[in-house]
């Protein structure tokens, strides 16, 4: 029997068949929750093979299922943010906005939420009351009701004060079919406003960084903005896909769309709105705003002929006042850059905008 060279076989298998063996870790690391490449690997390697079904496999921010003739959007999200209270919001309002936005990205009108609380022994009831009150306000403002819930308490040291899970359902209007696989060459990329506010607000508060003006989280419910966009040309599918660039930021959301639609996406550095303070904080910490989380922004892929009209409609909504067209969808079948996001820099050169690999790490110097 010929002697095989095990090493060669392993490397070849890794590079040509499936890259998993090289990256598989035997423990969960924080990067698995970062919304970037490690999170995607966890889905691919653990959950998707076991849970696989046509609805899940679409890998959108929400599942859309037909129940009794109605198209129901269904999603869930857990919130583990620290600090619990931050400029511009708190874990409660975030838990409501986050789930509403996941429904809204499917074009759905959000209706009902559930709220699950995991509380740590010793947590202040006063703080819990503040969080719940903030949830009630956020839900009322968005026109949704919190209709069911659950509470568990874990021993001191087994939680981090409070974790919240919210699940939401909504109805998708007839004729609305949004999905990350709908982007087509020639489409335009619209961003609804300045990026990085939420991530930097949290980081600044957590690390005790002080800036001249306080940076506020952008946490907001986006379903009304979405309704405005869809109303521009109902039932025409000019809005192809919506994503809220939360964990992993704009770069991860665009990379997901590029991969699922098998297109390339080119964005223009000079068109991407970033607040001065956020740029400053990112410069200081060595972070790239394209990778920083947002909680009240959306990315839209829209048909070129409708882009200007949709943009104008967005700008009339407070959540879209600073909306801008930031790029175009390119590539077609056989394009070598399919699945890739690139950016034309202010200098006219082109660079890749990659998905976040693990955690975004502040650099040494």
């Amino acid at each position, binding site marked *: 029997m010929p002697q095989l060279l095990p090493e060669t076989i392993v*490397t070849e298998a*890794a*590079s040509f068949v499936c*890259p998993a063996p*090289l*990256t598989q*870790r035997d*423990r*969960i*690391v*924080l*990067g698995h929750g970062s919304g970037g*490449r*490690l999170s995607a690997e966890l889905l691919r390697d653990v959950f998707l093979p076991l849970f696989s079904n046509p609805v899940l496999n679409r890998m959108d921010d929400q599942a859309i299922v037909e129940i009794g003739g109605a198209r129901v959007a269904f999603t869930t999200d857990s919130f583990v943010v620290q600090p619990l209270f931050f400029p511009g919001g708190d874990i409660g309002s975030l838990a409501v906005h986050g789930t509403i936005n996941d429904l809204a990205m499917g074009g759905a009108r959000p209706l009902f939420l559930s709220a699950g609380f995991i509380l740590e022994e010793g947590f202040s009831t006063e703080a819990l009351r503040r969080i719940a009150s903030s949830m009630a306000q956020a839900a009322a403002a968005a026109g949704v009701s919190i209709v069911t819930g659950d509470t568990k308490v874990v021993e001191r040291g087994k939680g981090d004060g409070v974790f919240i899970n919210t699940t939401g359902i909504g109805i998708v209007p007839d004729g609305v079919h949004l999905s990350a696989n709908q982007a087509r060459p020639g489409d335009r990329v619209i961003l609804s406003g300045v990026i990085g506010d939420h991530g930097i607000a949290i980081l600044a508060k957590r*690390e005790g960084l002080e800036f001249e003006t306080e940076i506020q989280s952008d946490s907001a419910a986006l379903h009304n903005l979405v309704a405005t966009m869809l109303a521009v040309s109902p039932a025409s599918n000019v809005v192809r896909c919506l994503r809220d660039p939360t964990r992993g930021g704009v770069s991860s959301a665009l990379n997901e769309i590029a991969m699922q639609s098998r297109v390339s996406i080119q964005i223009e550095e000079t068109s991407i709105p970033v607040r*001065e303070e956020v*740029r*400053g904080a990112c*410069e200081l*910490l*060595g972070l790239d705003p394209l990778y920083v989380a947002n909680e009240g922004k959306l990315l839209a892929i829209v048909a070129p002929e409708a882009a200007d009209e949709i943009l104008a409609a967005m700008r009339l909504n407070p959540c879209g006042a600073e909306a801008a067209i930031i790029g175009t969808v390119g590539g077609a079948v056989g394009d*070598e*850059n399919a699945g*890739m996001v*690139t950016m034309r*820099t*202010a*200098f*006219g*050169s*082109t*660079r*890749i905008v*990659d998905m976040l*690999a*693990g*955690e975004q*790490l*502040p*650099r*040494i*110097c």
Partner: protein
Amino acid sequence: MKYVDEYRDPKIALAVTGEIARKVTRPWVLMEVCGGQTHTLMRYGIDELLPPAIEMVHGPGCPVCVTPLEMVDRAIRIASLPDVIFTSYGDMLRVPGSESDLFQAKANGADVRVVYSPLDAVKIARTNPNRQVVFFGVGFETTAPANGMAVWQAKREGLRNFSMLVSHVLVPPAMRLILSSPLNRVQGFIAPGHVCTVMGYREYEDLVSEFHVPMVVGGFEPLDLLESISMLVSQLEEGRAEVENQYVRSVNPEGNLAAQNILREVFEVSDRQWRGIGPIAQSGYKLRQEFADFDAERVFDVGDSHAEEPKECISALVLQGLKKPVDCPAFGKRCTPMTPLGAPMVSAEGACAAYYQYRRHATAIA
């Protein structure tokens, strides 16, 4: 943004590139020493804007990249001890040691914390008197003063539970190594602006007179780099070799004397191992005898280890400017930021990671 946008103006950039193109009459190979400068070159695509006669090669100035494998292994071993709180700058956490990284150690139960300043680590030591707090002191002359200050402060306060795992390296010995190599191709250097902010640039004048190679102390913004390149091309075309200072808004010839005093008080120059390059004599810092109680390598007996670099990794050649990341057969295939074979693929400032992050489309098209 003030103090930043002025140095990123595309119009001025085009004017400077035009100036460089008019001056250059033959090919020149230039090296930017610092990883931060490499990052800017790639991020703004500056090398694409330069006339083809100018070739930029990338230097060894990425602190994460040159920290030896054994030191990362040692850090992981110390971090994994019970009662230790191991603190570090963020980007050291993903650097692979021979078997694992600090993220993995953290997942396995080690108390590993990211800090933004070594003084935060001292604060953690103060508030956790029953735990041993260790800070991973890596970097060049830029980070050394703050790290030295942390040790100095801990000694002054009489903290008995703070120590530093020191892996500091110095830029001039690495430049001397590159210049002394018979394979050297570099004809002009952009010297590291932040290192010179601390140290001044007298040491670089010694290198220039010894090797007759032009140097410009350069900043980190796109226009800083273009202006530095322009100044280097002028020197080369005119046959001059001297140290010029482009980064005048930050660097003066003598450097930051207060920072140098702390360095002298806390550290002494010692031999150091460089990842990918090997041992370089008198190329780093270790803590002085007076601060031995704060030296994590003495506080913890973690033994000695000799780890082997993956054979496929050509980082030694990349860090000396002899090869480009894309010359490596593993680049972008078996070696990516997710699965780094060598440290230049880990840190944002590593040359391989910069190419991977910003340039893969060019290699995909080519």
